[in-house]
């Protein structure tokens, strides 16, 4: 992978004492410059540090350092009941709390053998797609912000996101920490007037995406800064177990909604956009196209909600003891494949609880994408990976 470097720079093994960096001079007799793009930074999407070694302007080595937001989520889950861990899953990827909830509920339902009624499945799909819409909207806004467009696209994206968060608040009670899915269904039913409101939001969303594309997609400066930058080849993406929009931008057709067909996704017609080059521009365009596809799913799902119960009658709120066993439940979260691996030993608390965080696994490839590029590109590449530190660090 580091074939472009000459042999005077040893990077192969991780050094035992990281502070001792090789000070060999590269071409020109200048020293290598080490920069810590530190945890306090306006463009690193959270408390995240990158130790970058520069040769002039080119990146020679990049080491991501995280853990500043580690909150012992998995250990806490071993001492809490299954239901008690549900509010903690909201706080993993705090932009997309409803998809986190769904992934966890899916894992527990597999473990305990619960059946989800129809109406709850429709509501789950609708809330998950709304979550995907607002996540992708904020992401392209933040990418523009990192590029220096002073917050204008970000403000437009947040204007739309507010409408979706209002929907979440009237349904679940909270804008971001929803705590809405339960094992076997959802917590409460749709309130009065929610469907009309949701229809209105979904009807207005394509106009926002069109305006956004007018503002940004054809912009020559954007194209000059993002095309050919941060290319991720197909084989490398598959080998590094990258999932989500990053993988599809590299041209691999893998969307868990189509592969696993969890929930009732096989009832909806939607396409999966794929990228050609795997650069930052492809990832940006892919998210815009995914927004449009999500709107299509919503337009199919919203009129078709059946009446019925909201939760499996066999599910219990207190004293929930699934039988001994293990289960892995995964969904296509907006950032990638979010998976929960649970081992139960028959007690109310899980024996082992493990989160597969898409942001962390997508982040492992950052160095390979950034080698040889200028420092100004590193920020943009990081922005296109779409990380949320709550998920990276748990």
């Amino acid at each position, binding site marked *: 992978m580091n074939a472009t470097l000459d042999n005077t720079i040893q990077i192969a093994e991780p050094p035992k004492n990281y502070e001792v960096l090789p000070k060999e001079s590269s071409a020109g007799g200048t020293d290598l410059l080490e*920069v810590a793009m530190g945890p306090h930074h306006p463009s690193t999407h959270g408390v995240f540090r990158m130790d970058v070694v520069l040769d002039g302007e080119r990146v020679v080595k990049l080491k991501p350092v995280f853990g500043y937001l580690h909150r012992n989520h998995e250990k806490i889950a071993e001492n809490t009941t299954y239901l008690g861990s549900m509010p903690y899953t909201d706080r993993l990827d705090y932009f997309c709390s409803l998809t986190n909830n769904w992934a966890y509920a899916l894992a527990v339902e597999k473990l305990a053998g619960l059946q989800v009624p129809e109406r709850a499945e429709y509501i789950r799909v609708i809330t998950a797609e709304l979550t995907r819409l607002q996540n992708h909207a904020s992401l392209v806004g933040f990418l523009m912000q990192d590029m220096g467009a*002073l917050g204008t696209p970000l403000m437009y994206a947040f204007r739309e996101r507010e409408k979706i968060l209002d929907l979440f608040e009237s349904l679940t009670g909270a804008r971001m920490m929803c705590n809405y899915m339960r094992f076997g269904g959802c917590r409460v039913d749709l309130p009065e007037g929610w469907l009309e409101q949701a229809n209105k939001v979904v009807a207005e969303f394509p106009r926002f995406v069109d305006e956004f594309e007018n503002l940004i997609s054809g912009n020559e*400066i954007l194209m*000059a*800064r993002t095309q050919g930058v941060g290319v991720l080849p197909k084989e490398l993406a598959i080998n590094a177990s990258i999932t989500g929009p990053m993988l599809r931008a590299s041209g691999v057709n893998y969307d868990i909604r189509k592969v696993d067909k969890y929930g009732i996704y096989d009832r909806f017609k939607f396409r999966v956009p794929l990228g050609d080059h795997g650069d930052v521009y492809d990832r940006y365009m892919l998210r815009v196209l995914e927004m449009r596809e999500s709107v299509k799913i919503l337009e199919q799902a919203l009129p078709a909600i059946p009446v019925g119960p909201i939760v499996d009658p066999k599910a219990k709120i207190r004293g929930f003891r699934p039988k001994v066993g293990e289960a892995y439940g995964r969904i296509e979260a907006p950032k990638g494949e979010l998976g929960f691996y649970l081992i139960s030993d028959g007690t109310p608390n899980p024996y082992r609880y493990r989160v597969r965080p898409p942001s962390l696994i997508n982040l492992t490839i950052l160095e390979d994408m950034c080698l040889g590029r200028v420092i100004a590109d590193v920020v943009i590449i990081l922005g296109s990976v779409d990380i949320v530190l709550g998920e990276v660090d748990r």
Partner: protein
Amino acid sequence: MDETLDQLFVWLKHLLVAIVPAAWQPLVSALISVAAIILTFAGLFALTTILERKGLGRIQNRYGPNRVGPYGILQPVADGLKAMTKEDIVPRAADKVVHFLAPLALVLPAFLVLAVVPVGRNMVAVDLDAGLLFFFAVGAATELAVFMAGWSSRNKYSLLGAMRAVAQMISYEVPLILSAVTVIMAVGSLSTVKIVEAQTGYSGVLPHWFLLTPWGFAGFILFMISATAESNRSPFDLPEGESEIIAGYYIEYSGFKFALFFLGEYIGMFAICGLGITLFLGGWTAPLSFLTWVPSYVWFFSKLFALIALLIWVRGTLPRLRMDQLMNFAWKFMLPMALINIVTTGVWHFMPPGLVRWRPFRRQKLVQTDISVCRLIP
């Protein structure tokens, strides 16, 4: 009536100068011009900061500052107080003299070049025969200030930022001057007053501005792009707005010196926009022939506001260019375009009179004045 309104400030100045005994008159006359320029443009700076923030806010679907004073008008006062009362931190390893002089080296040339920009009819501080040359020579001194700031901070990152800023500003000087050369060719003089005088006169309703000629239009666009780059404004604000790695060459400045940098940058922006107005937009002349009754300084400042609004609009829309793309753009696109523009001007100059063709250096009769031109009496 029109004349008196138009020449109001000139008349005021003559009044004040006449009070003083004859030996002091040159000095007082100069001082009054200087005071007028400083007060006007510093006031304009304060107004522009609040307008920019409110304009950007409205573009982004929000209010700008609106708590300090009605509609936030007193926000610059609050900002000024803040800048003056903040602690002035000088790094221990910094070169103290250069560190102190850098903001001054930015502000002084910016104000100095305003002396040759004609703000109204007969309202220029100094009518130099080589006014344009003076402008570009002194204006280039601002680049020195940027480098002084970066160097004196003894900070590796701010030095990097300063070097980039200087590279950018020097690269964009070339298209800037070349696009001004076309105007010099058309007028045949380097004096800003004569350039404006060459653009008075109307064919029917339309004015004889150089903007309305083909080479002038292209030259104006090139000039404005270079002006944006010279003022380090978005989308060319890589040296100052580097959210990537460093905050730029003035990272080690705080308090009033930072405010001086800010002031210097904005005054430089006004100066270069003012020059653009003088060269291409006809200075203080009215856009349509039936509007000449409006005083000349009103037209100048309206055009200045329009250009500032354009710069704010561009800032709110476009993302930043990367350093190498910036330099590529300057050397590989703007420079050839500017050279082609010069050739076009020459061709146009020798074309026979036709539909859009008018001969600018045949002096049109000025519309009305008979107050003598106010010159700096040596």
